[in-house]
């Protein structure tokens, strides 16, 4: 216990693990309140950020999608959750990397997303004589306006695989965005920290 405390007080060499170990040792020793201040939680977060910053941030190499498909995925993620005046979009939030990682590990996703991207290119090739990536932004918008709504299968049944693909991609893009720092801040979530007391509900606006 004294070892990790010394590390903590010197401010060097402490890791999140040390912080949590300190919490646990304090609990076992029964004298813990001085160790659980909100600072402990903040410290844990800071450590993780530092560890991350220390690793070289090179260009991401996709684990599953071939280059063209990955570029298409990036474009789609940005169209699903775009950057706006409030916050960055799904691309800035790392959603394409997240989706690629999960897809590389999940055969079901490989079929629906990998297959879906090919469906999209085939459909665009038939209609616009270009891959989705090569289409004009007006054509891309026209395409998405069709596959973004289930209702559209009623007028064109051939859209249904594309709609299923897009529904899955939309869910995963939201997951990637709203699990990121950018997405969580966009929602103005406040918490994940240690409090001495729970403040309860602020006055409800009239």
């Amino acid at each position, binding site marked *: 216990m004294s070892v990790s405390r010394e590390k903590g007080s010197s401010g060097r060499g402490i890791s*999140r*693990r040390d912080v*949590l*170990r300190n*919490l*646990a*040792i304090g*609990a*076992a*020793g*029964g004298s*813990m*309140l001085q160790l659980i201040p909100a600072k402990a*939680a903040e410290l*844990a*977060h800071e450590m*993780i950020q530092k560890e991350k910053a220390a690793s070289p941030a090179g260009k991401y190499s996709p684990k599953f999608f071939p280059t063209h498909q990955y570029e298409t995925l990036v474009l789609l993620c940005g*169209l*699903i*959750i775009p950057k*706006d005046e*409030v916050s960055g*979009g799904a691309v800035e939030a*790392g959603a394409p990397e*997240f989706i690629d*990682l*999960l897809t590389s*590990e*999940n055969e079901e*996703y490989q079929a629906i997303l990998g297959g879906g991207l090919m469906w999209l290119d085939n459909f665009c090739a038939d209609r616009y004589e270009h891959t989705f990536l090569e289409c004009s932004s007006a054509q891309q918008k026209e395409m*998405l306006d069709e596959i*973004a*709504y*289930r209702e559209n299968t009623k007028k064109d049944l051939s859209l249904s695989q594309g709609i299923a693909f897009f*529904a899955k991609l*939309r*869910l995963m893009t*939201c*997951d990637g965005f*709203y*699990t*990121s*720092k950018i*997405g*969580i801040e*966009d*929602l*103005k*979530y*406040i*918490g*994940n*920290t*240690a*409090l001495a007391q*729970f*403040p309860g*509900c*602020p006055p*409800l606006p009239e």
Partner: protein
Amino acid sequence: MAQVIRSPKTYDVCVIGSGAGGGMAAKILTEGGLTVALLEAGPPVNPSTDFKMFLWPYDVPHRGVGVGGKAAENFGEFLAPNGAWKIKGEPYTSAPGANFQWFRSRTVGGRTNHWGRIALRFAPVDFKSKSRDGIGEDWPISYDDIAPYYDKVESYIGVFGTKENISNAPDGVFLPPPKPRCTELVIKKACDKLNILCIPSRLAILTKPLNGRPSCHYCAQCGRGCPSGSNFSSSQVLIPPALATGRLTLITDAMAREILVGHDGKASGVSYIDRATRSEKRISARAVVVAASACESARLLLNSKSHLFPDGLANASGQVGRNLTDSVGSSGQGYFPQLEKMPPHNHDGTGGMHLYIPWWKFDRQNEFPRGYHIELGGGREMPGAGMFDDVCEQFEGYGAMLKSTCRKRYGTNIGFAGRGEMIPNADTFCEIDPDVVDQFGIPVLRFHFKWSDYEIRQAKDMQQTFKAIVEAAGGEYLTRTSTDGPYPYGIEPGGKVIHEVGTARMGADPKTSVLNEYCQAHDVKNLFVTDGAPLVTNPDKNPTLTIMALSWRASEYLVDQAKKGSL
């Protein structure tokens, strides 16, 4: 021939399982002066390295959903080491149409590492429900027999709540409750209009320091495991004091295979598989306490066959594995436009609801026997994967519109989970599958499960109530359920609520029950079962608190009998 390694020592008691029931037995038995070998089928748990408290989703590459997104089905990758719906190498089977779901733990502390900490006392009527409505069986004990043990458990583990004087939801020894969240105040207001009770919940989380454990720090992440031990888990609250006596030997990665029986018909020890070496080892003990979880305990008893006990140990009644129940579960959610106006604020609180709806129609004539309570969730929680699935499904689209809809809708949904009482029925039980063994050669369980009309009508009532509450609050009820099919009104598959109990029930009559009122086997007096298996009924009060109270009572009795030399 494989060599069987016998322990040179004979322990006073061998306890199988380290969760709520086994952990409590280990504590009371060792503090009572007995030596105990505690077998746990999984590894030790280390709060400082295993618990993921305070991590953000973006701190890990899988953002909380785990490899291939597959941790989501086991409640996410941040959950305390705990268990899973499927364990590699350890299958179980379901009879056609049963589709039973079995969440098993293989870790010190068992399922208490992650449970919801909902700590509700059974009511006096719950012990005598057959006398009241003629269905099922009465318990061999009354509320007055168990009440002192509820007091002891609550005083020791710490439970917050308020005195309410509701006959169906007895008060306990409570710490002060945390303040309600905005979402809960909205529901409370609607319930007041509808004459539905809505009161502070009762959770095993400390709102004041207790017995050397610090108060909660309100991060809402109890399910991830609490490094400061401010919530209850067997691994942090029961096992440490047992170890401190110097009389507990904790043996991890030890999968119990069979309870051994001597020529005198008494339990003489336990044969188990050491996972690390896949070899069989034996523990000798003067008494055995089985607390491996209700169904796992039934499996162990049924697999402990001998010429003296050809149908399994303690099974002269044929009731081992029978009377299996889970809680009736049905869920829903509503959208509350008034919550859109809430300023951003910390909504975290404890790891669970601060208000809940106890069963409020206990003195009425309903379309089904017994009752249910309602758990509340939702609001401005830490964002995570799946949070906007409903928005995506409802609004579809993409782009600026989707993003602004998510922003607007964040924190405006409130979830409801009904948890009701299932009545034991003849079509619901577990037995040994004659054709399948696990990776250790131990025959596995086969489940039979059927909801009756009682439970389905209860689920229907839950859905109607959720909708009524949402609409009374000016919200929009979003959940749609079908009225037919295998899961009408959103009733969960059996096992899904993880409240399976009843598989070695207690009773006054050895012909219709497995255990006596002290959780002692009618047929084998030095054998006890102290998990959910002894429960005669499964009322709408989550079983863990009652499991611990019964285990405490049984363990005191065991200590007393051992001292008298009557085992």
